């Protein structure tokens, strides 16, 4: 809300610039920024139109003589349809500056001299949507005579200085000028003073023209009406209009303007009804029926049974606390008026306003809460303003639909505890002084204080609220900087986090860049890599189809990254991500969150350079990285790679499950060529490891061994074997038969093709024997080597070469 300095001055003295005020208010209370209207405007004065003649060469232009307070009237050519003799208007004189850099210069219009411009409000800075409708397509005309030549800025509020306060939802007390005056006053140690509104007691009568019934008393704690009889609706005074349009409210007529003005002044929304338009002279506040319609100027809203309405007989006058329909709208011909001041349940207002897209000034205030201690006074004020401008013959007493006594909140606190929470040592007097500035009443009893909070500060409830009030007004800048002084604690990561960091560091060391992707995927993406076979987890109300399901694999995200990069000519990629996937067990609402480490490599892993040849990524390159990661898992578990064609988007001949002690902990392989094509990626290899599962295995008991002192003995073995026999089978058989001194087996050659029988391959292994306690003899080694060869011949029908 924008707090006009001119208006504020009615309540407290203001001596600071709006910049200073905004800064100070921001630091002590509510985020604020300065607003200075019309700083660019110059040369705008009141003009009195003394004659209007048609332009000799134009149908729509007129040649006017205007008194601008100078010795002679000036001639101005004006195109506005509503210009007429004897009007008091805004004149931009020669050299005047208007908004958006427009400058007015003397000149000729179709041959006729023109020494300025007669302006519309929108031409001098009032937004068209906030200016009175009658001036929408023409010049602005003052209602009352003004002195020609006077500057127009103050008359029209064109150069108002304001502080725009951006309130947090708990400080709706400042959504009215009076509340804002309290807040700003406390900042500057100035107590505001307000005039109590008064009605002309002679006019107050016992009128019984209308009944009221509040059906939903719990949602409407206060509902008050006043009737004004025989009013003459007209225009509201200029001072009120200019304040309204500077608040972003369009002036309409003397009744509606007064209602809106009181809303800004008190923060209490006021509604007005034309009593004569009511089908039945009884207002009922109740829930709507499904399908009920509220007529608005440009559309009908279909209501439902949760919406609170104001009804009269069959007619729905409005949605309570939100908006009035057109049925009982006050217009220039209205005679008998009802003014309404109520308090409506915030949550109910919020939901209805949201449901029908009707949020506005009134609903905003009820949603956040209004002061139920001033409902009656605000209604008096609105009645007074209407009476002043529209001259009622009779005014009713307060008509009560529901009334709840407003009780001030009483908070008990302790000076020492409040000091303790702030980290300050204020004296009781200092603290009481600050609370007094806020308009709170304090009773002191030793260390104990009892603070009575006026109803306008309904956000205050507990001692912690006092801590905030005292601390902010005292000034946060005056707080010392300390650190918690309690018992020493040992900080750190969880063991699992340490574990996963360690594995991630391996990938960084292998030259892989870390990516971070979104957890929410499309349906297609969760279908693509549903490798855990768990149930999907879906959002109730997704925003887009792209982000509808919780991810069950990190691979789709990495593939998206590869595609994004390769489309930008970053062809050689090596990336990984460490994050959670979501796997929902059947019958369970909540998915398990499982930490995964996944990687993807595409393109060259060794670049073509002046001394090396390019090397493309292949299965074994990635497998080397995965092996290295697994070697850091600190486990005795046995890892195996098991060929698989289970995953439809992986290459069936180049994919393996990664097993730890027979349990699947991940996968590795090449993306299916079709999948690669669909996703616009080059040949790409991926892996995925379940960190949580690996962490469970992370229990190696390491007992240090000294390095062996005796030399090892090696044997090489070349065999010819059927192509479908896997390396892992051979290796495991060699280990089985190699005896206790067989220390290591590595494959060093694989060959298929020329000079080899079809469907056969040649494999060559390097066997290393070692006895840590003695030198091995040739016989011992030869004996073990023979057993290895015999077994291979027997089991796999190999040919020893």
């Amino acid at each position: 809300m924008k707090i006009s300095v001119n208006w504020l001055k009615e309540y407290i003295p203001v001596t600071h610039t709006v910049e200073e005020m905004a800064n100070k208010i921001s630091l002590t209370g509510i985020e604020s920024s300065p607003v200075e209207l019309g700083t660019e405007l110059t040369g705008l004065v009141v003009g009195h139109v003394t004659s209007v003649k048609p332009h000799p060469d134009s149908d729509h232009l007129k040649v006017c003589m205007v008194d601008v307070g100078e010795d002679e009237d000036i001639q101005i050519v004006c195109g506005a349809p509503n210009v007429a003799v004897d009007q008091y208007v805004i004149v931009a004189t020669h050299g005047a500056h208007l908004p958006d850099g427009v400058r007015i210069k003397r000149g000729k219009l179709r041959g006729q001299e023109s020494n300025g411009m007669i302006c519309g409000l929108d031409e001098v800075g009032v937004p068209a949507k906030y200016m009175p409708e009658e001036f929408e397509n023409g010049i602005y005309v003052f209602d009352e005579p003004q002195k020609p030549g006077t500057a127009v800025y103050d008359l029209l509020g064109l150069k108002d200085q304001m502080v725009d306060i951006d309130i947090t939802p708990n400080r709706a007390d400042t959504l009215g000028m009076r509340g804002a005056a309290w807040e700003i006053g406390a900042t500057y140690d100035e107590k505001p003073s307000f005039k109590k509104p008064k009605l002309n007691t002679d006019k107050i009568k016992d009128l019984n023209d209308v009944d009221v019934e509040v059906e939903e008393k719990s949602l409407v704690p206060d509902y008050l009406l006043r009737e004004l009889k025989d009013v003459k609706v007209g225009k509201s005074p200029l001072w009120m209009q200019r304040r309204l349009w500077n608040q972003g409210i369009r002036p309409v007529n003397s009744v509606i303007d007064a209602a809106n003005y009181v809303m800004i002044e008190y923060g209490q929304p006021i509604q007005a009804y034309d009593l004569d338009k009511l089908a039945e002279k009884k207002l009922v506040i109740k829930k709507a029926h499904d399908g009920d319609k509220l007529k608005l100027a440009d559309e009908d809203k279909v209501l439902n049974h949760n919406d609170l309405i104001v009804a009269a007989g069959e007619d729905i006058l409005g949605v309570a606390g939100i908006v009035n329909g057109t049925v009982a709208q006050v217009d220039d011909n209205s005679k008998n008026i009802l003014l309404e001041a109520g308090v409506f349940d915030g949550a109910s207002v919020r939901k209805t306003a949201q449901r029908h897209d009707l949020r506005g000034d009134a609903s905003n205030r009820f949603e956040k809460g209004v002061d139920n201690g001033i409902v009656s006074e605000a209604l008096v004020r609105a009645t007074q303003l209407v009476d002043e401008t529209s001259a009622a013959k009779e005014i009713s007493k307060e008509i009560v639909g529901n009334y709840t006594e407003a009780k001030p909140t009483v908070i008990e606190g302790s000076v020492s505890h409040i000091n303790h929470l702030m980290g300050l040592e204020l004296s009781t007097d200092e603290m009481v002084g600050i609370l007094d500035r806020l308009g709170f009443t304090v009773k002191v009893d030793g260390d104990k204080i009892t603070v009575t909070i006026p109803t306008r500060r309904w956000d205050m409830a507990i001692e912690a609220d006092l801590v905030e009030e005292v601390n902010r007004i005292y000034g946060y800048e005056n707080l010392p900087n300390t650190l918690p002084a309690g018992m020493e604690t040992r900080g750190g990561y969880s063991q699992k986090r340490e574990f996963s960091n360690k594995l991630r560091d391996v990938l960084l060391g292998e030259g892989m860049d870390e990516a971070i992707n979104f957890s929410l995927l499309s349906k297609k993406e969760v279908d693509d890599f549903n490798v855990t076979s768990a149930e999907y987890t879906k959002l109730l109300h997704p925003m887009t189809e792209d982000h509808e399901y919780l991810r069950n694999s990190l691979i789709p995200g990495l593939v998206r990254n590869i595609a994004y990069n390769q489309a930008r000519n970053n062809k050689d990629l090596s990336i990984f991500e460490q994050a959670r996937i979501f796997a929902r067990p059947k019958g369970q609402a909540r998915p398990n969150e499982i930490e995964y480490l996944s990687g993807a490599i595409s393109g060259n892993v060794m670049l073509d350079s002046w001394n090396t040849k390019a090397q493309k990524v292949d299965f074994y390159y990635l497998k080397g990285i995965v092996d290295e990661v697994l070697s850091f898992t600190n486990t005795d578990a046995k890892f195996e790679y098991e060929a698989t064609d289970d995953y439809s988007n992986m290459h069936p001949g180049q994919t393996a499950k990664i097993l730890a002690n027979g349990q699947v902990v991940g996968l590795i392989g090449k993306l299916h060529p079709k999948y690669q094509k669909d996703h616009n990626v080059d040949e790409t290899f991926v892996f995925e490891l379940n960190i949580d599962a690996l962490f469970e295995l992370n229990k190696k008991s390491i007992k240090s061994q000294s390095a062996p002192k005796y030399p090892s003995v090696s044997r090489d073995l070349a065999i010819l074997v059927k192509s479908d026999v896997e390396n892992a089978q051979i290796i495991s058989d060699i280990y089985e038969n190699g005896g206790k001194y067989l220390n290591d087996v590595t494959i060093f050659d694989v060959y298929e093709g020329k000079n080899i029988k079809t469907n056969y391959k040649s494999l060559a292994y390097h066997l290393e024997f070692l006895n840590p306690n003695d030198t091995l003899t040739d016989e011992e080694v030869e004996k073990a080597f023979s057993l290895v060869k015999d077994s291979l011949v027997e089991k796999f029908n190999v040919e020893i070469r």
Partner: protein
Amino acid sequence: MSLDDKLKSLRENGIDEAKRAQRLQELNDLRVNLLGKKGPITKALRGMKDVPAEQRPEIGTLANNVKKDIQQAIEEKMTELNEKLVAHQLEEEKIDVTLPAAKQVQGTKHILNQTIEDIEQFFIGLGYEVAPGYEVEEDHYNFERLNIPKDHPARDMQDTFYLSDELLMRTQTSAQEGRDMEAHDFTKGPLKMISPGVVYRRDDDDATHSHQFHQIEGLVVDKNISMADLKGTLEALCRHVFGAQREIRFRPSYFPFTEPSVEVDVSCFNCDGKGCRICKYTGWIEVLGAGLTHPNVLKMSGIDPNEYSGMAFGLGPERFAMLKYGINDIRDFYLNDVRFLEQFKGVN
């Protein structure tokens, strides 16, 4: 020719040949030819029998000296040739050191994780534990335990992805507060934790909004926690992240789960508070929200607010990284263009 002359002439020729040799092999051959068992010196000494007995020792000494001299000449020449050889090899092996390296690549940690870990390390140093929490959370922990009941207007401020009436994608890492307070044994000392992680909001993705982003929540509960402690802690953090000269200021704010609540600004690291585009000419940059734990939040976790108090703060790694490195579009973090990722190699 006398034996004496013969030996002298052999010496002369031998030394001369050694000096003229060009290759090591020639010298080896020379050694074998001249000094070997079948060589001319040995042969010449066979004529010793013709030498009178009294001259024999003299001739013997001469013969030995001749051998020694030739040997020395050969060795000198060998050393000379060897040195030449090494010099030649070094010349041969000379390379152009300005040619590019054989590339050794380390990967780059994502800038968000670098930022998060930098902050984690700061707090670990102050004795905080790191507890990441759940990304799928119960309404109970994400809202109700944070003093945000079902109809609270603050729920509008963070539009939520629900999975069911009770389950949601957490909108704030503060959701971890309730769980940590419940689990903590206060007889073992204060609760000091930070909770980093991913949070989700129903926001359209644009340059400044992302439906997924990161937060780090901090919480300390002990018997004597004050606003001054909060200010001191956050100023130390801001100095760690943004530079030793930084100051912070508190502005009153509102969060349902803290009272008092503050927004925290850090003095602009770009202009030192003089005012620039980054700080919107205010000299200050808003970096996080904080406050003292609301007594209701303590009570709901079974902690007596008369005995204990708490401080909490929540900060956004995206915002920190964007400010620190001048990143203008939050979407850059999630596109994973390697050119973007790799520019942050080793910054933290």
